[in-house]
């Protein structure tokens, strides 16, 4: 692979990819999360679940079938070994803990693992779709988002201000600056992304957090 400069989103997606184990069943939110598979090492194959009713989501491979779209409504394919089912069964899988990892974007995350990513009061409300079920049911919930909003304010807060998508549901937060784990004692800074120093993270993070032993020893 030719080493190239990654942009923020790519840095995030590449780090999220390291959380995946071979054979994991994964549901990816729309946008940034869909970039994750391209950063998986060759020996790690994940199985993608599409909330609209199948296992084995693949990229469009030429022919468009109007009856086969991904959860964003875009033409897609199904890989060998995949299976179709109805929406009820799709969410039995999701709510029932049969999805190993879900990766979603976030507007706000807080120290208690609360996530807000579905509405901003006063703005057009798209609806929560399957996000509330996903964060409630998936075994591991990873929020993949840029560290700060466009105005520079922290998206990692002491307490979410926006309406929640899920309460106490987030396991891991991956940004272009750092990786935080949500624990019973609040946030723990697990890793700094390449070239990022602790001071930068402290300045750009509203929530208080502990620092992992690994970083302290570094």
């Amino acid at each position, binding site marked *: 692979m030719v080493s190239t400069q990654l942009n923020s989103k790519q840095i995030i997606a590449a780090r999220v990819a390291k959380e995946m184990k071979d054979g994991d069943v994964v549901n990816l939110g729309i946008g940034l999360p869909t970039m994750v598979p391209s950063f998986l090492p060759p020996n790690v194959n994940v199985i993608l679940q*599409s*909330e*609209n*009713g*199948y296992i084995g989501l693949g990229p469009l491979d030429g022919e468009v*079938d*109007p*009856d*086969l*779209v991904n959860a964003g*409504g875009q033409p*897609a394919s*199904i890989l060998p070994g995949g299976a*179709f*089912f*109805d*929406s*009820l069964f*799709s*969410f039995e899988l*999701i*709510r029932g803990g049969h999805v190993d990892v879900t990766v979603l974007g976030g507007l706000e995350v807080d120290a208690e693992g*609360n996530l807000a990513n579905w509405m901003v009061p006063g703005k*057009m*409300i*798209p*609806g*929560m*779709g*399957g*996000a*509330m*079920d996903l964060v*409630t*049911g998936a075994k591991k919930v990873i929020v993949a988002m840029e560290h700060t909003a466009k105005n520079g304010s922290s998206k990692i807060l002491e307490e979410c201000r926006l*309406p*929640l*998508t*899920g*309460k*106490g549901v987030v396991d891991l937060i991956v940004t272009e600056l750092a990786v935080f784990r949500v624990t019973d004692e609040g946030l723990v800074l697990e890793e700094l992304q390449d070239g990022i120093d602790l001071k930068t993270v402290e300045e750009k993070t509203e929530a208080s957090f502990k620092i992992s032993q690994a970083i302290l020893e570094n």
Partner: protein
Amino acid sequence: MDKIISKEEVSSIFKDGMTIMAGGFMGVGTPQGLVSAMLEAEVKDITLIVNDTAFIESGVGPLISNGRVKKVIASHIGTNPETGRQMIAGELDVELVPQGTLAERVRAGGSGLGGVLTPTGVGTVVEEGKEKITVDGREFLLEKPLRAEVALLKAYKADKAGNLIYHRSARNFNPLMALAADLVIVQVEQVVEIGEIDPDEVMTPGILVDKIFVQGGCC
């Protein structure tokens, strides 16, 4: 017991104020011909139960754009800006339901259950006005069943008894809505004779299907 019906007969079924369910996910698996028949019926004040309101000009979207709908129960309305505009203007009542909960509520309505006990939405605005039930120390929302007077389904193939086979991701909400309405109408791409579908491959049994509308005319 001929279940096959023309577009005009479909149109005559709809009445003002009805509650209608329709299958589909962003228009995929939505019976576009039945939606069109409903538009031609010129009915108003419809309550629509759907996963999403699709797009302004496709899926169930045209029912919204043409002002036929009084209330929508859906998990997602973001792809149809007309839904949002009418909601903000106070012309349309929108009840947003998490997608898995929507599926469970339709199933409860179709299968005689009193409601659903789901963890989804606990601690969010979704819990407002709902009873919370604690089971073995964990809180669940009691979400109520949903039923409709008419369900509009899309399948790939039917036999003349109404046994259905769906195709790929166009299945979505269709099989569950087949149980949850007083009258079930399906739009299919093809109809075959009774006996031509292997009973092991039937996805919705014909006893649930009242009327079959064949896309592009039948037989």
